[in-house]
């Protein structure tokens, strides 16, 4: 299942079932927490792999751990998907920053993941590398807004909630991110 195939109702604020699962998870029910996060794992992996493909697996795991540890601070009236996506975007940013530092120390360019041998795959890998470079070059908030909009599929209200800002600020950040992506990746976009 890809992000785009997800249930459209998942974007709605927390359902009663989700609220019950949060309460059960807070009281120590592991299966409840699993049921709570399972529908969002593809989205978490997309965000993590966008900025750091090599560390995406760890990033998802760390995101789940952080999400559970901070579950007590989650506000039930807000979107749980936005709550998870915000943690994933921040975690991915942190991991990518560490990865770039390591790459700099080893006097290599930014990590681009394993090279693909088939030509088509090589073309896809090259496009993914360029997208990642543009994302990584963005200021932190703009980067998170881009990931939350394009990889997590959040609406402006959810992005505002995830970034702890207003809906207007979220719109501005997304607008700036989209403009930068179009400017720098225009040749990759469908005509």
């Amino acid at each position, binding site marked *: 299942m890809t*992000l*785009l195939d997800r249930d459209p109702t998942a974007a709605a604020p927390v359902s009663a079932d989700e609220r019950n699962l949060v309460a059960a998870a807070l009281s120590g029910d592991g299966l409840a927490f699993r049921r709570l996060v399972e529908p969002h794992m*593809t989205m978490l*992996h997309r965000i993590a792999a966008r900025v750091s493909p090599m560390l995406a697996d760890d990033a998802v795991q760390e995101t789940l751990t952080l999400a559970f540890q901070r579950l007590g601070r989650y506000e039930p009236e807000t979107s749980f998907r936005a709550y998870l996506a915000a943690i994933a975007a921040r975690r991915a940013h942190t991991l990518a920053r560490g990865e770039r530092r390591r790459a700099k120390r080893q006097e290599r360019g930014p990590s681009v993941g394993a090279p693909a041998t088939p030509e088509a795959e090589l073309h896809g890998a090259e496009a993914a590398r360029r997208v990642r470079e543009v994302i990584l070059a963005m200021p932190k908030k703009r980067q998170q807004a881009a990931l939350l*909009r*394009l*990889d997590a599929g959040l609406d*402006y209200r959810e992005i505002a909630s995830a970034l702890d800002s207003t809906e207007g600020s979220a719109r501005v950040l997304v607008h700036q991110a989209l403009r930068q992506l179009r400017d720098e990746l225009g040749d990759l976009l469908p005509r």
Partner: protein
Amino acid sequence: MASPPDDDAPDLRALFEQTSHPSTPAQQERWARHAASLPDQPRRRRWWWFVPAATIPAMVAMAIAMWSPDDETAGDASDAPSTTAAIAPVPNAELAGLDLLLAAADDEEPKSSADDPGLPGPRRIVIQDPLRVLDGLGDPLGSLELLRPPPRRQLDRQLAAFEATLEEER
């Protein structure tokens, strides 16, 4: 396509979809198991949780240090603080000498003749420097150092009493 209702970037969304990294079922199952195991894992302790615990010994030591053995209750065995230890009477005359020496450590100078510990009986050792109790806890022999030598005048008087006792027994 379940994009946000106010989709303003279908072209970029398509590019992101095309260049995304799909996760495998094995990965998803592993993350799901990890999520289910989280409540069983010990929660990470914050470093500042240890600060109050670390200050407890220091606070106890400070409280002991502020307590004065010269308080009015110091002579009352029933209110004896933890820095005093009761010693049973020693029947043997020779050991009674040791008891006298221990008793002599009660105070630097008896306040009056009524305070003079006198001959063998229940004795208390008042530790002059309570902080040193903590230092001596790990070394039982070290606690002997807590006994300060009694004043010369008092020691002479008690030795004379000890010799008089031996003389009477002869």
